[in-house]
């Protein structure tokens, strides 16, 4: 190919490429200005784990069956209970959020929907110890109204 022909072909290819970028300039912008505006997060999003409080009883729905502790592939849930029979109460419910892999198996096996995902992800800390979520933290992490409707709806259907 002659030099002139190559130059013309290169210029044509450049023109085609630039026309694509020009067209994109006039399309809607995709950038989300994050701290100011937020993307809508799906109800099923695997964010933080939480123990929502049942408005009827004023306590969480955990029945201390240890199913989530057993299924957890990372062994990051630690449950301890006190008392016997009907008076058994939770004395410890810790989730190591730094070890958790947010797989959702615990949410799936829970028979009473006591442990749920909340679509909340802004949890970075300066200290690693803060990522150990005790019972109070898990209660506090839960929103007041049930947000994980995607999962709960599917169960009840």
């Amino acid at each position: 190919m002659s030099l002139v022909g190559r130059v013309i072909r290169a210029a044509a290819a450049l023109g085609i490429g630039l026309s694509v970028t020009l067209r994109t300039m006039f399309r809607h912008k995709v950038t989300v200005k994050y701290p100011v505006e937020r993307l809508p997060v799906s109800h099923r999003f695997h964010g933080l784990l939480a123990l929502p409080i049942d408005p009827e009883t004023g306590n969480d729905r955990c029945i201390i069956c240890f199913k989530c502790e057993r299924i957890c592939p990372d062994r990051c849930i630690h449950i301890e209970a006190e008392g016997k029979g009907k008076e058994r109460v939770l004395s410890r419910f810790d989730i190591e959020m730094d070890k958790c892999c947010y797989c959702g198996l615990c949410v799936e096996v829970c028979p009473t929907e006591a442990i749920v995902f909340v679509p909340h992800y802004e949890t970075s800390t300066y200290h690693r110890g803060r990522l150990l979520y005790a019972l109070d933290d898990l209660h506090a992490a839960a929103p007041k109204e049930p947000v994980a409707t995607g999962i709960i709806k599917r169960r009840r259907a």
Partner: protein
Amino acid sequence: MSTGFVETPAGSSTEPLPRRSQIAPIARAVEILDNLPGGGLILTTIESALNWGRASSLWPLTFGLACCAIEMMAAFASRFDLDRFGVIPRATPRQADLMIVAGRCSIKMAPIVRRLWEQMPEPRYVISMGSCATCGGPFYYDNYSILKGIDQVVPVDVYVPGCPPRPEALIEGILKLQEQIKKEPFLRQHAAALAARRHTHAPRAG
């Protein structure tokens, strides 16, 4: 557990000592200014201006280890666009002042992470992104090859949990780090460190 190399305590003498002529001007200027009446105010103002500049141009090292690196790339890409915060990825540790450890770090990789961190100029910061970098995450138990947390080899400033964290979560972590940087008494710390080093390593007379 052992990571295969000797940890050096902070402020050790692995780096070459700065010459006296290099130390003197900054440290002495800070010292004099701090002792003047009203000088502390001026110093703090200068400091906050400097800190604003440092916090607004955090250049991270493009250093992806595993899955979280993909989310880090997504954070640099069109939708989240970390350039808005002055966070521009650099390919070499010499130009970077932030290291985002994204993903699990194996024991074979740990000395290299440490060396990269040592190659970065001070002041330097580390963000541990994701469960694996924070403590080994899913690879904590029954595993012989993954380091149980990157803080065994480098000091970490901000931990971002998630597996992997959303790009927004990483951005939030970077914003947290910026807040921390803005509060730092940068000049005074710098002067004090230099003075301490001069004090300990001052050549004996005679």
